[in-house]
């Protein structure tokens, strides 16, 4: 194995939101690094600061204090325009709600980041988008509109869009949150494959079954890291069974309630 580079270095990051007069300390001093080729799952209860951290790593927001380096660039000191360029060239974002443009084909959605690429590294936008869609297994769906695709397929278009600029880092905030268990497994397998091809990925989840695909788990509580462990990722097959079983149990509990409500 060759020498691994740190893709991101987060030092003493704090984020405080002002809600009227009260201060919400969403992040209270977070330190960690992610090396090239890692697949990290950030876990934690709702409100623990996962999305806040992802937004800062993704260059969508500035920390209140602390410093954040991406590929040795101190991102927290960049101007808004430079931050936009970092988002464009170094980061691929995947959202829970897919966030594709409606009435826009899979190919055009995938092409979109290249429109704003001021570095002009990639000459042929269509070819790059096509290749990216093939990489996520949607080579035969390029002309489909989002409303003609299943949830899993839409999320794969979003992943293709995140990959099209060859970013240093792919960020995914609850990427399987809107998917059923079968497609959750498919999407997680895709993340694993991409990671094996060398893509560095950080994803947020609150499901243990999803986190098991990761090589490393970082757990947040009240804006602080309380656990940071390496693990051997589980195989997809075993996991699928467990996930299906758990969701089936949850449905069993919910169903009588729903019946009563009727």
């Amino acid at each position, binding site marked *: 194995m060759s020498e691994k580079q740190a893709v991101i270095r987060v030092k003493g990051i704090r984020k405080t939101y002002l809600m009227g007069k009260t201060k919400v300390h969403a992040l209270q001093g977070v330190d960690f690094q992610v090396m090239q080729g890692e697949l990290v799952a950030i876990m934690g209860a709702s409100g623990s600061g996962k999305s806040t951290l992802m937004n800062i790593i993704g260059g*969508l927001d500035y920390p209140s204090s602390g410093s954040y380096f991406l590929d040795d660039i101190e991102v927290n000191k960049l101007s808004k*325009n430079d931050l936009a360029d970092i988002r464009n060239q170094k980061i691929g974002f995947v959202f829970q709600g897919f966030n594709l443009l409606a009435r826009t084909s899979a190919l055009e959605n995938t092409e*979109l980041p290249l*429109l704003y690429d001021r570095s002009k590294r990639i000459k042929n936008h269509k070819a790059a988008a096509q290749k990216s869609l093939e990489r996520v297994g949607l080579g035969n769906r390029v002309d489909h509109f989002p409303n003609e695709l299943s949830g899993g397929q839409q999320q794969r278009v979003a992943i293709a869009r995140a990959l099209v600029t060859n970013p240093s880092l792919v960020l995914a905030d609850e990427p399987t949150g809107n998917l059923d268990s079968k497609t959750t497994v498919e999407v997680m397998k895709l993340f694993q494959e991409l990671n094996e091809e060398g893509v560095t990925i950080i994803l947020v989840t609150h499901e243990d079954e999803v986190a098991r695909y990761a090589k490393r788990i970082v757990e947040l509580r009240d804006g602080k890291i309380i656990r940071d462990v390496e693990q051997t990722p589980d195989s997809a097959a075993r996991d699928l069974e467990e996930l299906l079983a758990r969701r089936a149990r949850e449905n069993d509990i919910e169903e009588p309630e729903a019946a009563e409500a009727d």
Partner: protein
Amino acid sequence: MQTFRLVKVAGKSIIKNKMRTLLTMLGIIIGVGAVIIMVAIGEGAQGQIEQQIENLGTNMIVITPGAATTSGASQGFGSFSRLTGEDAIKIRNESIYAAGVSPVMSSFFAQIVGGEGNHRASILGVTPEYQTIRNWNTTSGRFFTAQEERTGKKVVVLGQTVVKQLFGTRDPVGERVVVNRIPMEVIGVLESKGQTPDGNDQDDFIIIPFTTAQNRIGGRSFIRQILISTYTPQDIPAAQEEIGAILRESHGLAEWEADDFQVRNQEQLSEAAQGTTEVMTALLAAIASISLLVGGIGIMNIMLVSVTERTREIGIRMAIGARGSDVLTQFLIESIVMSILGGALGVALGVGGSSLLGSTMGWATAVNPETVMIAIAFSAAVGIFFGFYPARKAASLNPIDALRFE
């Protein structure tokens, strides 16, 4: 280039939302169309008035009663001004510049019976010089002679419309008509001069000798003008001065009294007429511009709604690396493209509308390329002006908030 790509993005967005695009453009389409139609009407009127004044004749001076300014005090009680036959005679006798002099007595709505029916038209009482001053030919028969004029012969020259009404296509020369119960002989028919821009028929009248008019119609008629021609165009300024002096003497005006008449040449007449139509054109254009302004506000309105509606789209674009300026440019281009497109459709509407108006109403409407350019440039400006605020609003959105927007 980046801007070119953003034009494509804006174009796609416009095509994908046809209904919204059409509604946005509607105000501009109507506004630009209205401006072009209004200006075309105004300019058409102006062109026709100019031509009409040229048609009046060459080397002509027109005397009309009344002071040049109507501002009060100098016009005392007894000074109700009139032109008289004596004025015309005095000018003919004393002026060295006047080649021809003709008083024009006019009476509206004489009853003319003859041929196949009866008809009401206005009567002009003039001298034979009127024909040469106005350079007006007969298509049939002849104008009356000085002899006929002096002796008050009951002869009449008809305008084309009167001929059509009474005789159809038949040549009326030699026929008899009864004008206000006075039988007269038709001796000629004048060539057609068509319509004025405001729709007045210039062929709907008859001409009789001045003396005849004085003797037979006198009571309800008055001398509306005295027309004078000079030998050469160079004589005109001197003639105006000379005739002014003759008339002052004729009217017995004291030195401190202002003229109670106006002596104007063709240029001055056309200036006056142009002044009126220019004001009319400006007024019409101003009214139409208001609709263009309303159209601009419509664009702003829909763009603002569109920014709110597309907050999520803006968030997505920003998340994947669009700068604020990219978003601003995209929205600005969208509104500019829509307003220019609307402007172009408005031009089509305006050109179509004014030629339709021209042909159905018989108006001379003129669309000049200048108006079209101005209209399109103006609508682009409207697009920039009214598109800027919504575009800036879009650009200033925070990507996280925009993404969270439902």
